[in-house]
């Protein structure tokens, strides 16, 4: 088995090349310990199984960002047998900078000169044979998205992998980039010190280590510090740095970068000719509109509206179909299976639990398809470009806008969409503030309460106010998090604006499928477990109580025996069912929990301590952990009043019951809405936060500060309202 690493700059077409090489034999996961995607796949040729690992796109191997760390540590490990360096032919000079670093690894290499069609359109003529001589490795011309040159690339990879000609031994290669006498001298001295530790130079040349150390690459410094020769290396390194700075007048990392770019520049001069450069290419013309002063924002808004509509309006069709299918399975199972605990577990626990995972799938797939499309066309970078000023005010990155806007539809896919943000701190802050965006599942709660306690106009105002409050909280929380927890992490906004390209449909579809699959496997399990736990808490011990079951069975039998007209009989049976569920719920562990919670909620929902039913709030909110819309259904059960009104009635029975009997006032109802807005969104989101942060700590933090903040803001609502004279 041979392992091939695909390395290259972002936007060099690495992914389409990877897809063309491996076809459907792919596997996507994460790199160990980090949330950088790890894609690997295989192809078979000449009886050899070749594993292809797609490294994250990087501009260099300095190992500053997580992506670079992953790429450089994989390349420095003994794992890859051949390195394929993908080069964007239309932007050769900057792409060759990474090549200079890769060449220093002294591993068998193949260069894939990709996007040759773009380069030719821009008027470039490249001398491939000379490029191959100067780089010292085979150069294959490819057009990844059309699958051109793939067979030649496979052949070149196999030739390198099999290489048994000692004259081609990469360890014997002359260095490609020479850094001048002064620097080369220090490199030699430093390499000598590194060679004292056989472990360090077992897989990698001493010269490579010396260069990494001079550059100040984090992973190399850490490895050197752990070596038994650490002291000698450190002393030599400090000397070399001081010497070079004094003699050459600049820090050594600057000097190295300049020499590397000098090499790349010279190479391009040698192999590339440009006859007729187009004056204004397609990208310039599109940019005049897409990032234009007056047109940029209207276009951006239109794109966002289109994605929102696709994800949450069009996406609602398959989502409703999933819901209807789950409902049918639920009803069928409920009708067919004998009543009992196991049936209830299945019917009220497992089926809704699976359903609560599956309903997210359509919107996740559509949103991720859109995000992938925007990324691949190059528009994502432009949108970040025009939005960065606003997002930066919130302590966020230009790319944070997608999660925030999509969060108004559903937080779960929105949090997955934070994947496009490179810097870890930007990404974490975005993940932590996205749940404050008022998602569509919170709307039924607002409508229920606003309808019951406010006149129509004031009610509509309250619903709008909730959305604005959510946005404001996200802004303030983002700013505070940036100023407190992430103050020291300085992520520069250095972003390439790549040329516009038409994405390959297959890549977009693969992306959608991957996201869906990873969601089902990672977040799905947590959501499912949580749903089952909440079913257990809301049904035990009542559901196992035989007396209670017998009592209701007798009552049902009595109704059946009365020989009533069909409609009346159904209504009576419905009432009985409601009463039974209510009794189970009101004696359940969740209800006990709600009663324990009562003192906690008293200041916000019962400031005057005169509501005997205040404990029911805690029950509804506990059940709402699963999903916010469940708050309404739970309230219907515990207040013994259906949430659906009769036709023509202004208020549903539940709304009447809440208004007349629950003891909530307009003010405490508003506080309730505020709390529902801010506290932990739902299990789906929690599962996704855990999947995306890979940290129980951050997941717990998100849940805890949501709860705390929700309580505080609800309390402020009550305090403020009372100060203004409302009850």
């Amino acid at each position, binding site marked *: 088995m041979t392992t091939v690493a695909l390395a290259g700059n972002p936007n060099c077409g690495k992914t389409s090349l990877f897809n063309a090489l491996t076809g459907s034999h792919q596997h996507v996961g994460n790199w160990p310990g980090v949330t950088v995607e790890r894609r690997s796949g295989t192809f078979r040729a000449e009886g050899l199984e070749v594993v292809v690992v797609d490294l994250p796109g990087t501009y260099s191997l*300095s190992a500053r960002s997580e992506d670079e760390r992953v790429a450089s540590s994989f390349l420095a490990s003994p794992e890859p047998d051949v390195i394929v360096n993908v080069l964007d032919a239309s932007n050769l000079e900057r792409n060759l900078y990474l090549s200079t670093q890769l060449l220093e690894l002294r591993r068998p290499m193949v260069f894939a000169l990709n996007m040759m069609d773009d380069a030719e359109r821009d008027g470039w003529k490249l001398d491939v044979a000379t490029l191959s001589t100067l780089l010292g490795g085979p150069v294959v011309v490819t057009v990844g998205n059309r699958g051109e040159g793939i067979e030649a690339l496979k052949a070149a990879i196999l030739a390198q992998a099999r290489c048994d000609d000692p004259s081609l031994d990469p360890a014997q290669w002359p260095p490609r980039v020479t850094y001048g006498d002064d620097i080369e001298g220090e490199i030699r001295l430093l390499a000598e010190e590194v060679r004292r530790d056989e472990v360090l130079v077992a897989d990698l040349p001493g010269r490579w280590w010396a260069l990494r150390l001079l550059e*100040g690459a984090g992973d190399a410094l850490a490895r050197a510090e752990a070596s038994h020769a650490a002291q000698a290396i450190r002393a030599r390194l400090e000397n070399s740095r001081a010497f070079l700075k004094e003699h050459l007048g600049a820090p050594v990392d600057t000097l190295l970068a300049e020499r590397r770019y000098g090499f790349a520049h010279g190479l391009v001069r040698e192999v590339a000719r440009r006859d007729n450069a187009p004056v204004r290419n397609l990208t310039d013309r599109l940019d005049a509109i897409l990032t234009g002063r007056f047109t940029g*924002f209207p276009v951006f808004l239109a794109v966002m509206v289109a994605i929102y509509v696709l994800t949450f309006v069009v996406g609602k069709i398959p989502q409703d179909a999933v819901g209807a299918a789950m409902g049918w399975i639920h009803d069928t199972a409920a009708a067919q299976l004998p009543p009992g605990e196991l049936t209830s577990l299945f019917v009220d626990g497992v089926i809704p639990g699976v359903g609560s995972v599956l309903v997210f799938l359509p919107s996740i797939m559509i949103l991720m398809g859109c995000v992938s499309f925007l990324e691949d066309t190059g528009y994502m970078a432009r949108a970040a470009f*025009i939005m960065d000023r606003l997002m930066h005010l919130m302590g966020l990155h230009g790319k944070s806008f997608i999660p925030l806007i999509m969060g108004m539809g559903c937080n779960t896919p929105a949090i997955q969409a934070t994947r496009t943000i490179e810097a870890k701190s930007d990404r974490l802050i975005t993940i932590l503030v996205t749940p404050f965006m008022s998602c569509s599942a919170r709307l039924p709660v607002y409508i229920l309460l606003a309808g019951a306690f406010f006149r129509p106009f004031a009610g509509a105002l309250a619903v709008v106010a909730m959305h604005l409050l959510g946005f404001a909280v996200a802004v303030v929380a983002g700013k505070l998090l940036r100023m407190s927890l992430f103050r020291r992490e300085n992520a*520069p906004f*250095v972003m*390439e604006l790549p*040329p516009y390209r038409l994405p390959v449909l297959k890549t977009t579809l693969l992306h959608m499928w991957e996201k869906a699959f990873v969601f089902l496997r990672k977040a799905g399990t947590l959501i499912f477990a949580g749903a089952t736990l909440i079913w257990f808490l809301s049904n035990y011990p009542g559901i196992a109580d035989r007396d209670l079951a017998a009592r209701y069975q007798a009552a049902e039998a009595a109704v059946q025996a009365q020989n009533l007209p069909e409609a009346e009989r159904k209504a009576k049976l419905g009432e009985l069912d409601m009463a039974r569920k209510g009794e189970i719920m009101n004696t359940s562990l969740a209800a006990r929990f709600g009663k324990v919670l009562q003192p906690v909620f008293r200041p916000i929902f019962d400031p005057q301590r005169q509501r005997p039913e205040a404990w029911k709030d805690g029950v509804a909110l506990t059940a709402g952990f699963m999903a916010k819309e469940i708050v309404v259904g739970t309230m219907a059960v515990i207040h013994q009043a259906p949430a659906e009104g009769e036709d023509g009635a202004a208020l549903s029975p539940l709304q009447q019951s809440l208004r007349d009997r629950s003891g909530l006032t307009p003010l405490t109802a508003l506080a309730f809405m505020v709390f529902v807005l801010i506290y932990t969104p739902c299990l789906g989101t929690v599962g996704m936060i855990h999947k995306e942060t890979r940290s129980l700590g951050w997941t717990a933090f998100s849940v805890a500060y949501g709860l705390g903040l929700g309580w505080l803001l609800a309390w402020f609502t009550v305090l403020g309202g009372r100060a203004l004279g409302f009850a």
Partner: protein
Amino acid sequence: MTPMPLDTFKAGESGRIARVEADEAIQRRLLDMGLVRGEAITVKKLAPLGDPMELVVKGYHLSLRRAESACILVERAQP
């Protein structure tokens, strides 16, 4: 001619990079992206809200916040 911070440049102006004076992480990133001494650089345009800037260097397009482009000292080309 004394080098000026890049954030003082208007859209359409260009020059040559004299030096980059930023803290280590940013400096490193800018070097890796090809913003080395002597390189020609052009301010292509500003974002609609005035920040960040779009630059052209080594034939590709790059966006930088003003705060970071202020670290790049550039000798202005004579128009």
